[in-house]
């Protein structure tokens, strides 16, 4: 019965001409977001639970695929998850990396080294608690690090799409500022 419903769902989504990305948004809403709305006091909703390793890997696949669409054709993009038993996980996107699929690295040392690189860049008056700053983006040379808490809501496929779009918009805005700056300087 369940598989029939899923099949019908797919047909309905196709009927409305939704892209694969838009289908993910609808599916996430139905399976994770709506069931977690208006919870009773003390209830731990599905979105508040810790995301499974499989969900985290799937998030990374979605993020990489969505971000690739914003890059020049032929640009390589690798993604790796750095997990180390802490309260947060790091996602590293690296330009030019040809890592197969999602690289998962587990080890406190690896996570600590990467976190140290990131924390060094944070302004002095900024909290070092990544839970306070979920989804912090840090550009270091050809790498882009995202700090992500473990709650499922940060690892939904729709979060991957949203993160990719936010990164792209940040880059487009940086591109616009850079182009404007260059033209300003030529005008001096």
């Amino acid at each position: 019965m369940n598989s029939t419903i899923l099949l019908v769902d797919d047909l309905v989504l196709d009927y409305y001409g939704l892209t694969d990305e838009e289908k993910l948004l609808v599916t996430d809403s139905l399976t994770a977001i709506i069931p977690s709305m208006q919870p009773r006091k003390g209830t731990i909703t599905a979105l508040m639970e810790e995301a499974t390793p499989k969900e985290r890997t799937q998030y990374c696949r979605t993020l990489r695929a969505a971000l690739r669409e914003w890059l020049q054709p032929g640009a390589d993009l690798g993604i790796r998850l750095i997990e180390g038993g802490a309260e947060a996980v790091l996602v590293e996107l690296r330009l030019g990396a040809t890592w197969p699929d999602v690289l998962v690295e587990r080890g406190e040392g690896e996570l600590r080294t990467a976190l140290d690189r990131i924390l060094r860049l944070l302004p002095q008056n900024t909290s070092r608690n990544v839970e306070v700053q979920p989804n912090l983006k840090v550009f270091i040379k050809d790498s882009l690090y995202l700090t992500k808490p473990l709650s499922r809501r940060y690892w939904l496929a729709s979060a991957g799409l949203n993160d990719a779009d936010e990164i792209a918009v940040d880059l487009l805005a940086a591109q616009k500022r850079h182009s404007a700056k260059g033209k300003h300087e030529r005008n001096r």
Partner: protein
Amino acid sequence: MSAIGDPSLWRDQVVTAYDVVHAGVMAVWPSCRASIDTVRTVAQTKDATRRKKSARRRLEDPITRNLVRHLRLVPTLRGRFHIISQYELIAGDLTQDPDPVGYVDVGILFSVGLDEVCLFIECKRLNVNGASLAADYVSEGMMRFVTGKYGLDLPVAAMIGYVMDGQVPKASDSVIKQIRSQLAVLCCAESSISFVAPGQFSTSHTRKPLDIELRHQFLSALG
């Protein structure tokens, strides 16, 4: 999500908003053109009301509105940009007149994170009933960007020419000739005219405080 660090390597790898929108325009134009063709067929009927209505729909604004409707359905654009027809420009300075400074034909805004204009597109008809309208394209299109009336803080903007008789090379030649005859007014150097493909070129204009590059794309209204 807040971003820190130096994104320069990434910034150079990302496609521009213009690239994404331009690809969208080229993809939907055949469908837009088909509806102009339908209108032309209707124009040949004896029904005066239908003829009048179809003539109106061959004007610049209805063609642009139709283009905007199509662009809003493009999968690569619809989730990422707000596409606004007749984008109203209002002076931010409270001491100034509240009346709009103008209306840009198409405003493209980021739909994620920022509520910021990333591209303006101004559209003009060309080669209408034997008139090239190249002078209008320059004076009532390009000049709005050159004077800073439109997109004062934008480094790049777009112009679209609807070539109503389908003769794109002829329309392109007329506009280029017009531009060359008004280089000083347009604050444009001859060397800054750059040809990309037939019916597609760009021009750069010096402006205070920020120079602007205009990317021109001419589209045939005939199938």
